[in-house]
């Protein structure tokens, strides 16, 4: 049981901070970047590829560097600290993770190689209007006109919102299979039968409505196989990484708030003179520390590689981080007062991003329901293994 990062991990953090942290150290840079399509810095994306960050989670034979969840979590935290808009979570961890989990050897080599090299942006087209974070597809369906060998598949229906779906060079699409179950497919978004409408999201990100009309689709992995357990597993990994990103964001949001309290004057004194405000800041710190503890623990559960424990650990982290994110996001603005409402000032963007992360992969109550359903199955939760 050890909560400390080793030297190599510390070095990774410093390297990412040197690149991403530096790029967005000035909040105006981030504002400018998200104001224009594609909503992120393609040059920076290329540098992340060069540094090996995009390939971090993938095996070396696929062009990656074979690092583990601890390292990916460090990257996510650093992205979170500066609200970096690059599609690391949805493009690398989620879409890339699915290719790694479900693709054939050939697909892994080809797609992950291009992804790791920064040559191809991926997106996972999964959410459907009305869906609520399930690992399955429902209204988007796949059908096969040819043999079952993987030829002649098409998908139809609407996926929305698809994070960074308009910019993506290649889509990983979940679709209900004719024989039941949910399949995964690779779709070329420039093919006929694919229509994309991109738009900005409140947190400075991008999403799209992607409509498929008998669009040609290549099964990811073996054709016609239910991939919902792979989807569930990769979603859980992405949840824990979203938690890592959120704790990075919360740390900075709290820092910014305490700095503001010590510098802003009202009634002739700095705001930290008002005990009602400093006590609330103390409560924020408590929320942050607790969320951080569960997130680091869940990341270690991933690293320990026990698939049967991953879903529960992801839900536990997601629940705690959802509660903390709302607490910190809401109070950070309130403690800033009017200035906290403005887009020029960074703090509101932290709240906005925390809200987005909370709803991307399942909010606190969603995970609470899952945990409540099994609360009677065990006497207590023992985090020590």
């Amino acid at each position: 049981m050890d909560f400390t990062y080793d030297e190599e991990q510390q070095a990774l953090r410093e390297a990412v901070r040197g690149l991403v942290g530096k790029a967005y150290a000035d909040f105006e840079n981030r504002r400018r970047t998200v104001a224009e399509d594609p909503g992120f810095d393609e040059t920076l994306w290329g540098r992340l590829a060069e540094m090996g960050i995009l390939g971090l989670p993938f095996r070396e034979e696929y062009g990656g560097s074979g690092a583990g969840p601890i390292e990916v979590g460090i990257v996510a935290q650093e992205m979170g600290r500066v609200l970096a808009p690059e599609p690391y979570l949805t493009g690398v961890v989620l879409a890339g993770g699915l290719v790694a989990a479900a693709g054939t050897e050939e697909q892994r080599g080809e797609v992950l190689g291009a992804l790791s090299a920064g040559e191809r942006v991926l997106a996972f087209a999964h959410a459907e209007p009305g869906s609520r974070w399930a690992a399955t597809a429902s209204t988007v369906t796949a059908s096969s006109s040819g043999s079952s060998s993987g030829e002649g598949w098409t998908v139809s229906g609407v996926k929305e919102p698809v994070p960074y779906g308009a910019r993506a060079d290649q889509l990983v699409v979940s679709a209900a299979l004719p024989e039941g179950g949910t399949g995964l497919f690779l779709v070329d978004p420039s093919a006929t039968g694919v229509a994309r409408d991109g738009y900005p999201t409140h947190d400075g990100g991008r999403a799209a409505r992607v409509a498929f009309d008998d669009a040609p689709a290549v099964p990811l992995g073996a054709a016609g196989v239910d991939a919902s357990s792979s989807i569930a597993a990769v979603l859980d990994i992405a949840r824990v990484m979203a938690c890592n990103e959120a704790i990075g964001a919360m740390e900075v949001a709290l820092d910014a708030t305490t700095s503001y309290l010590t510098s802003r004057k009202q009634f002739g004194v700095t705001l930290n003179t008002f005990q009602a405000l400093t006590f609330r800041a103390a409560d924020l710190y408590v929320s942050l520390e607790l969320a951080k503890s569960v997130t680091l623990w869940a990341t270690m559960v991933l690293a320990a590689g026990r698939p049967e424990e991953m879903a529960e650990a992801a839900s536990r982290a997601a629940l705690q981080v959802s509660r903390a994110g709302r607490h910190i996001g809401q109070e950070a603005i309130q403690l800033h007062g009017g200035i906290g409402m403005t887009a020029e000032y960074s703090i509101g963007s932290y709240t906005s991003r925390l809200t987005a992360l909370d709803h991307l992969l399942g909010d606190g109550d969603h995970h609470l329901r899952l945990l409540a359903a099994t609360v009677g199955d065990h006497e207590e939760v023992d985090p020590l293994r």
Partner: protein
Amino acid sequence: MQLELSPEDAAFRDEMRTFFTTKVPQEIRDAVAERRELTKEQVVESMQVLNAHGLAVPHWPVEWGGQDWSPLRRHIWHEEMQRACVPTPLAFNASMVGPVIAAFGSQELKERFLPKTANLDIWWSQGFSEPDAGSDLASLRTTAVRDGDELVVNGQKTWTTLGQYGDWIFCLVRTDPEAKKQRGISFLLIDMTSPGVTVRPIELIDGGHEVNEVWFEDVRVPAENLVGELNAGWDYAKFLLGNERVGVAPVGATKRVLAQAKEWAGDQLADPLTAARFAELENELLALELTALRVVAHSADGKPHPASSVLKLKGTELQQAVSELVVDLAGPASLASGAGAGSDVPEWARRATPAYLNLRKASIYGGSNEIQRQIIAKTILGL
């Protein structure tokens, strides 16, 4: 103690309900229902329809368009309006500058401004807050210096809501720099088309343009635009801020959103946790509405009722809590916040997060909830 409305009040309520649901254009009410931002024209049209029927400024003196209703009737008027998705009369006109001019302005100012103010022929903006005078309003620094028959105004106001539409702005300005803080402040009406007035938009975190900075550079204002006495502006501001007890808490609008959210929830309402969350919020809103009724019933004396702070504090908390619930109901679709009309995500879900983010302001603007707690602690509890 009496639960029922009197037959007269019940009839009044029916009358209001009928009016609001039949006389105000449906498209305006639809925009409110969908939580869209209203256009300037929609706000003006709606208030003019109300004013044409004597329903825009019922709390003003009768000679200026008021109705001499009981507080209960004003409450009913206000709740039914929100229930019917009718935009409430522009607060800057109806609840702020109008009552101040009516109470403290000269006869000439009244005649000049009150009819146009009631009819929204003049769109008023509010110039109180400054970059270094937020909760600590009395530390404001915008000055007005006498020069012949004019006052020369210099300084900066901020958080001026909808200032981009403003024709006139009512300002607190420092007219006696020697006097201590609250003294030496005057209440001045300024034509926003005057040379030297600059309005600059402030983008908010929901991406909207709702508030502004207003800059004054050697703006010359006729001295007759002073309301009431020189250096007595702080008293008028206190009157303005404490004047209104009806509609302090956004009960009706919040109730309406919660009722709509039940529709939006669909199957989710069958989930016990979701149902409990609705039931708890609904109960708190009931408690708030009943508290508002208790407070309006004691408002005859014309002085600010400190319990108004309870309404503001709890009202904004519940408004925010309901907006948070709506984001959760939208779930992953809440990420489609920037989608256009072609989206497959319903409009309410697309509006959910921007509305939630925008409403963070509710507990900050117009006297932050910290200020409200301070008022309760000091004025009511004697702490």
